[in-house]
């Protein structure tokens, strides 16, 4: 069964088609990576799937349900989570508070205002367990804005996972990371349970090919190649795109 089906999706900004008649499917448990040069339409596709912007034409289906007209939070409630290209956290709050806000988002108590959050034992324990699992418990009191960039990227993925999504959208999770940090985040993605499908944008082709079951290449708003990592690595279309914009096979 497909977790995500994008059908003939088009998005125009004035006269410019940022995405043109794109169809893509993500199967249950699949890790699909979107690649392409800057301006290829990858983030536009993410923003459309996530509901941040509305399509000009086409439809988006999540686990067999048409979600094209739903707002962002309703899509999240149906099992979709995402990270952002530019780190998007609650910088003025502590790591603990970031995790707490993410953890309580889909719990029944998220709208409660008559009891302090510290009285909800189950949520507290979940926050603690999650932070311990990802080795961040010792940083729980640190303000997120003061953390290193690598830890912030890691926290971003962990926050997205707090809603226990069926589909995880990762927008360039390795962007700006050192080689060591890239390996660490790659390992996190590889270690994800197969009940979670992943659609990921990645410029680091080495990491992308390591993670991907399938790779889809976009160029100027259209799909130009689609296949397994090995097939795509040698695809003529991809060679053409990347020789125009940079090297193929490593960090672009």
């Amino acid at each position, binding site marked *: 069964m497909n977790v995500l089906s994008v059908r003939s999706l088009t998005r125009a900004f004035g006269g410019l088609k940022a995405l043109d008649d794109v169809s893509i499917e993500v199967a249950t448990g699949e890790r699909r990576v979107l690649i392409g040069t800057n301006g290829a339409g990858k983030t536009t596709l993410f923003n459309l799937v996530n509901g941040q912007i509305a399509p000009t034409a086409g439809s988006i289906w999540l686990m067999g349900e048409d979600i094209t007209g739903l707002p962002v939070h309703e899509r*999240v409630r149906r099992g979709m989570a995402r990270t952002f290209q530019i780190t998007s956290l*609650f910088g003025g709050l502590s790591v603990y508070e970031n995790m707490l806000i993410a953890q309580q988002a889909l719990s029944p108590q998220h*709208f409660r205002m008559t009891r*302090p959050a510290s009285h*909800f034992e189950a949520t507290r324990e979940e926050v603690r367990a999650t932070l311990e699992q990802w080795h961040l418990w010792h940083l*729980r009191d640190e303000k997120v804005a003061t953390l290193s960039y690598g830890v912030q990227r890691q926290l971003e993925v962990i926050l997205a996972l707090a809603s226990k999504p069926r589909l995880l959208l990762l927008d360039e999770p390795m962007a700006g990371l050192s080689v060591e940090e890239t390996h660490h985040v790659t390992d996190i993605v590889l270690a994800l349970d197969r009940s979670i499908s992943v659609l990921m944008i990645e410029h680091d082709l080495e990491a992308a090919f390591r993670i991907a079951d399938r790779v889809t290449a976009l160029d100027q708003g259209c799909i130009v190649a689609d296949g397994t990592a090995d097939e795509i690595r040698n695809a003529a279309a991809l060679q053409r795109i990347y020789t125009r914009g940079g090297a193929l096979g490593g960090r672009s």
Partner: protein
Amino acid sequence: MGPIRMARASGWGEGLLRPMPVAGGAILVVVVLAVAAFLPAYQTELVTQMLIYAIFAMSLDLLVGYTGLPSLGHSAYFGLAAYATALLALKLALPFWLAAALGLACAVIGAFLFNLLALRTARAYYLMITLALSQVLWSLAVSWTDVTGGDNGLPGIARPVLGIRLDGAGVWLVFVALVFAVSTLVMWTLVRSPFGYALRGIRENEERMKALGYDVWRYKLLVSMVAAFFAGVAGILFLSLNSFVGPQALSIALSAQVLLMVLVGAAGTLFGSIFGAVAFVLLQNVVSSWTERWLFVVGAVYVLFALFAPAGALVWVRERLRSSRGRSR
């Protein structure tokens, strides 16, 4: 690990038994009883005014400090509740408590309707639209003379009876202090609740909140209604304190003053607003008894705060305490 220790370990909890709030409550009881028993009516009414403004400022802090909604029209709810209560008590001769309940309902419904429109905007635009909406009410109060009394306002509202008559300045102070204590406790619980943490999240990063599954608009609407409720409580107390309500209760000057109370005290701390309210009433009343140029002094104090404690008094004190503790280690 027990709940209080756990809260401390995580750095975010504020257990009910924390020493500061308990000390604050004890100080409130002692001050209120001492003032009510020993000070003359004028000073007693000044302290009453401080407590009323503190409720008003804390209600605005829910919007400005916790949710990141910079409102410059908060007097709308203060005045709306006061006017509605006065009109219902005077024109329809309803009992005070019923009129007050309906007055509060007016403030909350007003906030609901206002924010259906205002929440389509953000940041400076939100500030402008709240200002515009409150000005509509103010001009209505000034121009609809038959109903509102125009510039003369509505005088002659008797203070309520609650088992005993609440006429005397001391008794009225004790009553206001009780309302203040309950309001503070309710708002304090709210900001520490899951709802309160969601508000902080909205203030910090609205897009991330949506991406986590929060219906941000609903939170903003609801907190606006809660804030309007407490602003309304303050408005009705103020009405009873003065036995009068006039257009000043809906004015931009009052909205700006309460915003300054929040900013001077420290936005997003709740208790900072209490300091802001106390400082404002002291400056306004004490300094004006020394010099006719009291507004100059008030302005200078605000400038000093903006320069040397831009995050507000409470944060300034907290940082000083933290750094002195660090040095002593």
